[in-house]
C-alpha cells in the first residue's frame, strides 16, 4: 500500500514534469509543440555527450544542454512556427517534422564519423547514488529528487508567472491576446519566450528523470504521447488540469500495473483518454464549456 502511494506519486510527478513544458507553450501561445519529446531526448544525449566525450562537469553539462534546448525552442519559433501561426494543421505538421528530424537525426549512422545513438549504452549518472530506508522500504535518492524537482519546478513556475514582468506578460497573452497586445505586450516575443521556456522545461524533465533508465531515441515518441495524454485529460492549456491529470494517470498506471501487470500500462492510458473524452470532452479542468468551441 505504501509503495503504491510512493511509486504512484513518483510516476505522477514524472508525468507532470514531462507535460508542464508542453502545456505551458500551448496555454500561452496556442502552439502545439510536437517537437517536445524530441527535445527531451536531445537534452539527454547532449548531457551524456558533454559528460562522456568532453569530460565536462555533470552540472555544467546539464546547464549547457538546457541553454541549448531553450535556444532551440526559440529557433523553432523564429524559423518555422512564426510563419504558420493560426494554421493549426501546419503548426502540428511542421513542429512534428522538426521533432522527427531531431529524433531520427540522432540515430543517423556513418555521416562524418557520427556513430548514431543506438542501443542501451547511454546512461546518465544519478545525482546522489544512495538508497534511503523509509517506512520499511528502500527508496533510491533519485526518485526523491524527482518528487523534489517536480515540486520545485511547479513552485518556480507559479512564482515566475505571478511575480515577474515576463511571466505576467505570458499570462496576459494566455488570457486575452488582443488586450495584451494593446497594452504593449509583443505577442511574437512572448510566444518565442514561451517556446524556449517550454523546451528548457522538457530538457529539465529529461535530466531529472533519465538517470532512472537509459537514454534512447525511441523514448521521444513515448514522452510526446505522455505529454499529450496528460494535456488532453487535464484540458489543453490548463495548468492545474495538467497537474491533476498527471496524478490521475500516474496512479491509474501504477495501480493497474500492480494489479494486472506492466503490459496493461498503455491500455490504461488509452482507456483513460477515451473515457475522459466521452464523459468530459474538454478535459478535467478545461476552460471550454462545450467541445464544439474547441480549436
Amino acid at each position, binding site marked *: 500500500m505504501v509503495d503504491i502511494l510512493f511509486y504512484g506519486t513518483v510516476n505522477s510527478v514524472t508525468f507532470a514534469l514531462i507535460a508542464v513544458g508542453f502545456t505551458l507553450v500551448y496555454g500561452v501561445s496556442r502552439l502545439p509543440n510536437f517537437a517536445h519529446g524530441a527535445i527531451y531526448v536531445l537534452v539527454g544525449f547532449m548531457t551524456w555527450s558533454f559528460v562522456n566525450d568532453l569530460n565536462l562537469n555533470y552540472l555544467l553539462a546539464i546547464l549547457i544542454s538546457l541553454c541549448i534546448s531553450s535556444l532551440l525552442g526559440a529557433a523553432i519559433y523564429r524559423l518555422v512556427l512564426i510563419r504558420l501561426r493560426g494554421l493549426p494543421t501546419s503548426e502540428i505538421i511542421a513542429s512534428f*517534422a522538426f521533432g522527427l528530424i531531431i529524433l531520427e537525426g540522432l540515430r543517423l549512422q556513418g555521416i562524418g564519423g557520427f556513430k548514431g545513438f543506438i542501443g542501451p549504452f547511454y546512461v546518465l549518472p544519478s545525482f546522489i547514488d544512495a538508497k534511503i530506508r523509509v517506512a520499511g522500504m528502500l527508496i533510491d535518492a533519485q526518485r526523491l529528487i524527482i518528487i523534489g524537482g517536480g515540486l520545485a519546478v511547479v513552485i518556480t513556475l507559479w512564482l515566475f508567472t505571478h511575480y515577474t514582468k515576463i511571466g505576467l506578460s505570458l499570462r496576459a497573452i494566455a488570457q486575452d491576446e488582443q488586450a495584451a497586445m494593446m497594452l504593449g505586450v509583443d505577442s511574437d516575443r512572448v510566444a518565442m519566450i514561451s517556446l524556449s521556456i517550454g523546451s528548457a522545461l522538457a530538457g529539465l524533465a529529461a535530466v531529472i528523470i533519465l538517470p532512472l533508465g537509459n537514454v534512447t531515441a525511441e523514448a521521444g515518441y513515448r514522452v510526446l504521447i505522455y505529454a499529450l495524454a496528460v494535456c488532453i485529460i487535464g484540458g489543453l492549456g490548463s495548468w492545474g488540469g495538467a497537474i491533476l491529470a498527471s496524478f490521475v494517470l500516474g496512479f491509474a498506471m501504477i495501480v493497474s500495473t500492480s494489479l494486472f501487470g506492466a503490459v496493461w500500462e498503455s491500455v490504461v492510458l488509452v482507456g483513460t483518454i477515451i473515457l475522459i*473524452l466521452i464523459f468530459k470532452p474538454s478535459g478535467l479542468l478545461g476552460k471550454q464549456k462545450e467541445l464544439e468551441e474547441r*480549436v
Partner: protein
Amino acid sequence: MTTTEDKRQERLDRGIKVRTEGLYALTSWREMGYLLAPRAFLIFGLLLLPLLVDSYWQRVLCIAGVYALLALSFDFLAEYVGLVCLGGAFFVGCGGYTAGLLNHYLGWSPFFTIPIATVIGAVISTLILLPCLRLRGVYFAIVSFMFPLLIVNIIIALNIFGGTEGISALATLPNIWFDQYLIFAAVIIALFVMRRLVNEDIGLIFRSIKDNDQAVRASGISITLYKTKAVFIASLMGCFGGAYLSHQYGWLGISLFAMDFSILPIAATVMGGAGTLVGPVLGAFMLTPLSEALRGFGQLRVVLYCLILMGFIVYKPEGIMNYLQRKYHQFEHWKEV
C-alpha cells in the same frame, strides 16, 4: 525601367470556366482536349509506368501506390472535413491485420480477403475512432496520432496476432503485374471517385463541417454522422492499402502500424498541394522512389522527407499541384498600376 512595385499581376480565368470550380462551358474539341489532356496524361502515365521499369522498381511503385491512397485519404480528411489525421498507419494496420488474419486462420484467398478486409477494417477503425470524432483540429490530430502506437503496444502486451514476430507465409497475389495494376487501378478509381464525391452534396456538407460546424448543426444536420461517414470513406482507402500490403509481402506484423505510413502521406500531401486530391497522389509517386533510393542511408530518408515537408510548409505552402493548376487554368500578365 519599371520595377515590380509599379506593376501588379493580373490573373484571368480561361474562357471555358463557368463561375464555379469544376463546371465548364465547352465549345470545341480543342477546349475539350484542353481539359482532358492532363487527366489522360495522368491515367496513361500511371498505366505505362510499370512497363518502363524493372521488377525491383515495380515493387517500389506498388508501395508508392499504397502511399498515394493514404495521401489521398489524408488530404480528403484534412482539407475537406477538417479532421487532421496523423494516424494513417492505423488504417493500414487495421486493413492489413484483418486481411492477414482471414487468410491465415480461415485460409481465404486474397481475392476475397482484400475486399472484405477493406470494408471490415474500415468499420473497425471507424468504430475505434468514433469516441474521438467529437474532437476537432489539434485534439483530433493528437488522439489519432496516438492510436497506431498504442495498438502496437496492445498487440505486444497481449501477444495476440503473432505478437512482435507477426504472421508469415500468407498467400500472395498471382504475379507482379497483377500487383502493380491492381494498386494503380485502385489509385485511379479512388482519385476520380473522391474528386466527384467532394463536389456532390455530401462533399458540400463535409466542407461546411470544416468551415463552420456550428452552422451545419444549426441546419439540422448531425455533424458526428457525417464525420463518421467521412472517416469511413477515408479508412476504406487506407484499409485497402493495408490489406494489399500484407498480401503483397505475404507477411503481417506490427510494422504495418509504422510511423512511415503516417508521415510520408502527409509529406506527399504538403508537397503535392493540399486540397487538390491529385497533388497528394503525385507527391506520393515522387517521394516514395526518393525515399527508396535513400534506403541505404538508414534513418537519413526520414530526416530528408521531414526536411522536404518543412521546406514546403514554410516556403511553398500551396504545394506543386496548386501552383501548376493556377498556371494551367489562368492567364497571368503584369499590369501597370
